[in-house]
């Protein structure tokens, strides 16, 4: 089962490269603890999932690179090629010259329709290379114009074209104190549109990852490279193959196989899901937790803490909400590692903050002319606000 990755914008492409690199390096990491056969099965599964084969043996990432200006894609392609480990397909990228100017409306309403066919063809080609398609992994940021606007458009397209395949969006939540001034507008427009077409939104906050680099890893001068590598590491430990429940030498076929769609008991609410990924436990109420353990002693780990009803909303039994995947094959050079994917209230506060700031700015109509210029009207903003206020409210009542 293969995953096709779509990397959008500067952020998406920079992270995408690090993800593939982390996956490759992990799968080729010398393992002391696992048997040779086990390791080979792992490698084969990882390869099938993320890479396709070329004649001379260099694996090609199952990825489509999209950006509206050329510098980053050019850099990403050469970084991969120069690594000698793996590379991107020669004809897997699409770029333009002008960029999206940090304008969601431009990315969604102008670039989207204009390049719909070209991008669709590229993705189709990549899908055809897969024996069986597990789903799509779309990497994008919320703050800019291409990742956010064009990303929302592309996800919608994928929903129309591949409605049976899973679409998971990896979203980068911008720093609180601004990288882009209109980032809050771009974020609310992105989230509200993705809610309608994506199956799962996997969120990474720049602030949180930055803190990991500073406090846990003690990096003095943190660069985006550092941040992206931490991110890639986290994603790798989630997406690499895991054993299926039977424990046989049979790696779980669908890496996105958990039922992310959870329907709450109250009528009339849309079945939305949203997850956040972090390594620390927060006592936010969860509706789903997935714990992935890799390496030594995975079968003897004590997981009672995860089954505490206090962690979960009152209308769910922990046994229904908590899942654990264990794999003896270690991740990268770590003897033991754990990753937690969580659908909980963790993101309520950041989301609420973004909605609040965007609302304040919208009330003064600042920058709105930049969006109406390209067909995003005030009603579109209001719809987005309404939808997100509902999401916040839903999560708050857990």
């Amino acid at each position, binding site marked *: 089962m293969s995953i096709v990755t779509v990397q959008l914008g500067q952020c998406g492409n920079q992270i995408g490269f690090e993800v593939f690199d982390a996956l490759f390096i992990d799968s080729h990491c010398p393992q002391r603890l696992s048997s040779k056969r086990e390791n080979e099965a792992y490698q084969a599964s990882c390869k099938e999932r993320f890479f396709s084969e070329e004649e001379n043996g260099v694996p090609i990432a199952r990825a489509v690179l999209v950006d509206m200006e050329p510098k980053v894609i050019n850099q990403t392609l050469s970084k991969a090629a120069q690594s000698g480990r793996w590379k991107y397909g020669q004809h897997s990228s699409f*770029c333009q010259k002008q*960029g999206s100017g940090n304008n969601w409306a431009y990315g969604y309403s102008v670039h989207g329709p204009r390049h719909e066919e070209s991008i669709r063809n590229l993705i189709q080609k990549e899908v055809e290379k897969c024996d069986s398609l597990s789903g799509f992994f779309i990497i994008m940021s919320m703050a800019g114009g291409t990742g956010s606007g064009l990303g929302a458009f592309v996800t919608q397209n994928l929903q129309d074209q591949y409605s049976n395949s899973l679409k998971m969006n990896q979203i980068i939540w911008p720093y609180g104190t601004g990288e882009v001034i209109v980032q809050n507008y771009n974020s609310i427009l992105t989230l509200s549109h993705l809610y309608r077409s994506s199956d799962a939104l996997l969120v990474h906050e720049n602030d949180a990852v930055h803190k990991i680099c*500073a406090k846990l890893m003690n990096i003095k001068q943190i660069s*985006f490279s550092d941040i992206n590598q931490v991110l890639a590491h986290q994603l790798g430990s989630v997406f690499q193959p895991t054993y299926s429940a039977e424990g046989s030498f049979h790696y779980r076929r669908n890496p996105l196989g958990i039922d992310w769609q959870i329907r709450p008991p109250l009528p009339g609410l849309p079945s939305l899901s949203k997850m956040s990924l972090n390594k620390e436990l927060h006592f936010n109420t969860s509706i789903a937790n997935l714990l992935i353990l890799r390496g030594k002693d995975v079968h003897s780990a004590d997981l009672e803490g995860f089954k505490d009803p206090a962690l979960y909303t009152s209308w769910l039994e922990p046994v229904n909400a908590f899942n654990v995947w264990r794999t003896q094959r270690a991740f990268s050079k770590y003897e033991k590692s754990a990753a937690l994917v969580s659908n909980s209230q963790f993101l309520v506060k950041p989301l609420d903050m973004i909605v609040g700031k965007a*609302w304040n700015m919208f009330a003064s109509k600042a*920058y709105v002319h*930049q969006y109406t210029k390209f067909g995003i009207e005030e009603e579109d903003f209001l719809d987005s606000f309404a939808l997100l206020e*509902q999401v916040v*409210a839903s999560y708050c009542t857990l």
Partner: protein
Amino acid sequence: MVTVRRSALAQPCDGKLFPEPGEVLSYGSDLRQRRDLRSPRPLGELRSCARGIQRRRGFLSALSGQRCSMTQSVIVQVGQCGNQIGCCFWDLALREHAAVNQKGIYDEAISSFFRNVDTRVVGDGGSISKGKICSLKARAVLIDMEEGVVNEILQGPLRDVFDSKQLITDISGSGNNWAVGHKVFGSRYQEEILEKLRKSAEHCDCLQCFFVIHSMGGGTGSGLGTYLLKVLEDEFPEVYRFVTSVYPSGEDDVITSPYNSILAMKELNEHADCVLPIDNQSLFDIISKIDLVVNSGKLGTTIKPKSLVTSSAGTFKKWQEKPFDAMNNIVANLLLSLTSSARFEGSLNMDLNEISMNLVPFPQLHYLVSSLTPLYTLADVNVPPRRLDQMFSDAFSKDHQLIRADPKHSLYLACALMVRGNVQISDLRRNIERLKPSLRFVSWNQEGWKTSLCSVPPVGHSHSLLALANNTCVKPTFVELRERFLRLYKKKAHLHHYLQIEGMEESCFTEAESSLSALIREYNQLDATKSRPVEDLPRLSVAV
């Protein structure tokens, strides 16, 4: 896609294409000497490169996964001031690219401001889009209604960088009269201006931006320069119009400069996307500051020659005799830094279209205060390099601003920090956190920061910072301008020089004055919110 066959260039154009510091180079003559050694190339191949059809190329890129090229910008320099600044800009741009581009390959970064031309080809077919650099031509249009400055440029070391077909000159000059520049020369040269602009646009694969450089106080830069803006807006509506305007200081020796400036302001209000106001006094103050350091004789204050923000030639004695050269170089540096993240790679790119998207919250409020640091780098290696954080502090000090204003005591609507060199995101964030408390941001944009990180520093520096602020502190400049205008206008002084020009009436003046007053009112309204506490507005309430 067509490529230039390497073998065809038998004698490579080696590094001698770029000048050494202080060296005077004539591009054309050097190449003429080597021409005979090269074997002829199939010109048909080369010709088709230049005629990139924008949409088709995009389509081809999608199918073949080809690497795309970047966008281009065209500089339009108008009047004496505009052309002098422009000249410094081109010199600096060449030096910057020479420092970065060691192999003499015509790459995308260079293509944003320069064409690569095979000078042997007559007519238009000589553009080469890839391969070794043959002859670089500036994407520029030079306009002046007197011949002096443009002639000097054409006889100077940069003469081969300009295409003779890119010039529009006249002999009589505009007599420091906006009406002559705007109405008389505007209509006389309309066709020619259009033609040259179209030509420069055709030479671009994907034109993103026009940079107009001019002064406000005179006749040509002010009048014809702003006439141009209307033409650009009508003819190229999709292309951004960035205007660098030198405002007259209070002691300006041109008596009618307030008239010219106010009349020009109306055009800037209506037809520019973004304006970077500059005043000569600030530039002069910067030079004086550097002078103090240079001549202080303190230990460890020898300055690295190439690093002066004021000097291109690498020696800092010259500028004392020619202060305008030094001042113009500061503005040239501003333009280079503004475009650096669009030309060179970095971990957080910022394209030119992002500048107006982020810094212009309302269409009329598009005046940006700029400040540049560092002004120089010390040469003595025993003196520790300026702490990175000092660079950020300096950017918010009045000493580094290119216009006299007090942003710290006014209201920020938005602020952009464009960093170059070895600076990472954590450095940026740390400094924003540190400086934020002392700055006042408007209530609806409390975190109004736009940032970019470009890996390539300017020549002679390890890092640099350009801060662009949309701040109500520009208001005093405009208020003062209006006052000077009213003092003259009330007495009807010198008005007849303007009114005798066809198309000029008193209404032109009153309209221009009210346009400026409206702008000042906008800033006043925003300033009024400064002291109000920041409150969150009541949110939408939804049914759960």
